C-alpha cells in the first residue's frame, strides 16, 4: 500500500487562522461575523458551500457562508447561537482568531443559471446560505433574467438581514415578497406561512430555477407549491442541514441514505433528493 500524502492533504484537518474583523447583531439570537484570513488569502467559495469553524478548545461547527464570492478580502458567516461553538462564537469580539476549514461541499449551480428566471424561497435563517447566491446574482444582475425573492420569518423580530431585505425590496429589477407567520404591532405586511405567498406570483416553469432553503418542516410544503407551478424536479434546488463533523466525507454523520451531505450536498436538486428517503 503506497499512497503519497501531499502537504495539502496533510492539512486536511488543520484549520486556517482567520481574524474576526466585524460583528453585527442580526437578531437576539443571530449575529453576522466577518472574517479575513490571517494569511491574506481568499476563501474561494461558491454560494451554498459551508466552512467548519473552529473555536480551539471548544470545538468545530459547520456554518454556511453568507457572503457572495464577489466580496473580496473577507467573508461573512451568519450564525444562530445554539450549541457550544456558536455560543462561544457569539462571545467573540473584533480581533479574535478562529480556525476555518473549507469551503466544503457542493454549492449552488452558477453557470446553468445564466439567462434563467430565478425564484428564491427563504425561510428564516434559510436565508443565511441563500444570501450568498442572491447577492452574487444581484452583483451580476445582467446575466440573469427575472428574479423573485420570497422571505418568511416566524415573526418580525426574527427577520434577518433587514438591510438586504430592504435593498432587495427597493430594487426595480427584483420581485420581492415577504411574510411573517405571526405579526405584531410593528408589522404592516403580509402575515402567513411562506407558502401563502405563492399565489401572488407567476413563473415560467420552462426557464425558472427555484431555490428553497428553510427549516426542515418547510421543504415539503414549499416544494409542493413549486410543483403546483409545474416546475420540474431538476429545477428545484434545496440545501439540507445535517450533522457534519469532519466536513470531508469521512466521519459518516451527515449521510442521507447513501449520500454525504458534506460532499454530495448540502445543495441538492429535488430530483436527487426524491431518491433519498431520509432527506425530507
Amino acid at each position, binding site marked *: *500500500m*503506497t*499512497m503519497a*500524502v501531499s502537504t495539502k*492533504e*496533510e*492539512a*486536511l*484537518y*488543520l*484549520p486556517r*487562522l482567520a481574524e474576526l474583523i466585524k460583528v453585527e447583531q442580526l437578531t437576539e439570537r443571530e449575529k453576522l461575523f466577518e472574517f479575513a484570513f490571517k494569511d491574506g488569502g481568499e476563501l474561494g467559495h461558491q454560494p451554498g458551500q459551508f466552512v467548519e469553524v*473552529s473555536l*480551539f*478548545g*471548544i*470545538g*468545530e*461547527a459547520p456554518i454556511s457562508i453568507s457572503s457572495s464570492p464577489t466580496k473580496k478580502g473577507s467573508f461573512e458567516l451568519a450564525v444562530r447561537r*445554539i*450549541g*457550544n461553538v*456558536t455560543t462561544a462564537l457569539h462571545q467573540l469580539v473584533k480581533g479574535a*482568531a478562529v*480556525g476555518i476549514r473549507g469551503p466544503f461541499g457542493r454549492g449552488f449551480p452558477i453557470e446553468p443559471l445564466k439567462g434563467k428566471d430565478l425564484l428564491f424561497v427563504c425561510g428564516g435563517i434559510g436565508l443565511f446560505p441563500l444570501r450568498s447566491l442572491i447577492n452574487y446574482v444581484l452583483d451580476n444582475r445582467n446575466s440573469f433574467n427575472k428574479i423573485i425573492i420570497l422571505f418568511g420569518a416566524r415573526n418580525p423580530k426574527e427577520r434577518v438581514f433587514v438591510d438586504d431585505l430592504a435593498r432587495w425590496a427597493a430594487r426595480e429589477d427584483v420581485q420581492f415578497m415577504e411574510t411573517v407567520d405571526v405579526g405584531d404591532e410593528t408589522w404592516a405586511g403580509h402575515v402567513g406561512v411562506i407558502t401563502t405567498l405563492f399565489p401572488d406570483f407567476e413563473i415560467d416553469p420552462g426557464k425558472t430555477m427555484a431555490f428553497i432553503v428553510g427549516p*426542515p418542516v418547510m421543504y415539503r410544503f414549499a416544494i409542493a407549491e413549486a410543483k403546483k407551478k409545474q416546475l420540474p424536479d431538476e429545477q428545484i434546488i434545496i440545501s439540507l*442541514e*445535517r*450533522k457534519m*463533523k*469532519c466536513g*470531508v*466525507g*469521512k*466521519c*459518516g*454523520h451527515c*449521510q*442521507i*441514505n*447513501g449520500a454525504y451531505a458534506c*460532499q454530495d450536498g448540502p445543495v441538492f436538486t429535488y430530483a436527487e433528493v426524491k431518491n433519498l*428517503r*431520509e432527506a425530507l
Partner: protein
Amino acid sequence: MHSQVIAKQELAAFVENLLRQGEVVGVRRKDGKYVFDKIGSPGELCLDYDVTVLSPKEYFLPQREAFLKFELAEAIKAEPITQAQRRIILGVHPYDIKAIQLMDAVFSKDNPDPNYFRKREAATIIGVDCLNPSPHAFCASVGTATAESGFDLLLTDIGAEYVVAIGSAKGEELLQKHAKTRDASDGDLSKGKTARDEAARKYQLSAPVSLDQIPRLLEENYDHPLWEELAQKCLSCGSCTMVCPTCVCFDVQEDVALTLTTGERYRQWDSCLLEDFAKVATGENFRQHRSTRLRHRYFRKGKYMMERFGIQGCVGCGRCITACLAEIASPVDTYSRLKGGS
C-alpha cells in the same frame, strides 16, 4: 508474484527477527477468545484462531486519536498530529484484509485522510488464511474467505509448513531478509488450495442472496415491517458497529488542559446506531427512531458502500452476530427474512 514455503519452526525465528525490527501486533488468546495485541514473543501468537473480538482496524483508525494540537496562550497556534508508528500486523484473515481495502477506499476518496494513510503506510500486513471459521462467519458466501491482494504476505497452513504468498515488494524484502524459506512447488500450492477449499466447506452460515442482489433486496424493503420488529429488541448499544471491521464512522471532540492554554482535537469511534449520531445542535435528530438507525446500518453495509466505493460493506466475519445480545444484528438472518417476505 511467486510463493514461498516456510517451516513452522522457521516461522518462529522469522517472528523473532520481526520483533527485533519493531512493534509486532499479532493474535493472542484473551478470556477464551482471540484479540489483536502487541506480542513480545512468537509463543504468544495464535495463527489457527477463528475470529478476533475486534478487527485490526484500530491500527489504522484508533479508538481515540488526537489529530490536532493547539496552544491558546497568546497567539493561537494549531498543528496537525499525523505521525505513525511502524508496525507489522501478523495473522490478519482474508475477510479483514478485504475490510482494510474498503477502509483504504473510504479514506482515500475525494479527500485522502492523512492520519489514516500515515498509519497505513507504516504498517506491514501479514495475513493468514482462515482454516477454522467462526460459527457465525459467512465469508465463503460473500467472497471474502480468501484474498488475492491487500496483504504484503499471506500464510496458508499446510501442515508442517506454511505457504507464503507474496503480495508486495515490501513483503518480499521482509521475507528475504528475515526468514528462511524455499520456493513453493506446485504441490505446495495445491496443498494450500486444498486447505482453503476444505475451510470454505466449514462455514456454517451463508448469505441467502448473492452480493449483487443485496442492494436491490434492501431497496425493495425499505419500508418493511421487519425494521420496526427488530428495533423493538435493539438496544442501540452500538456493539455491532464497534466490532465491525468496516464501520469507520467517528466523532470529533476537543480536550483542553485545566489551565485552558493547550489542547487537542481528537476523533473517536462512533456508531450510527447510537441515539445522538445524527442529532444536530438545534435538537433535530435526523434518525431519531431506533428502527431508522438499525435500517441505516444494514443499508450502509449492503448497499451504500458498494454504490459509493465499489466494495461490499459486509465481509461476513460474523462479529456483529456474536456481539449482538438482542440477536438482531445478523445480516444472514435479516436478508433471509427480507427475502422471505418480499
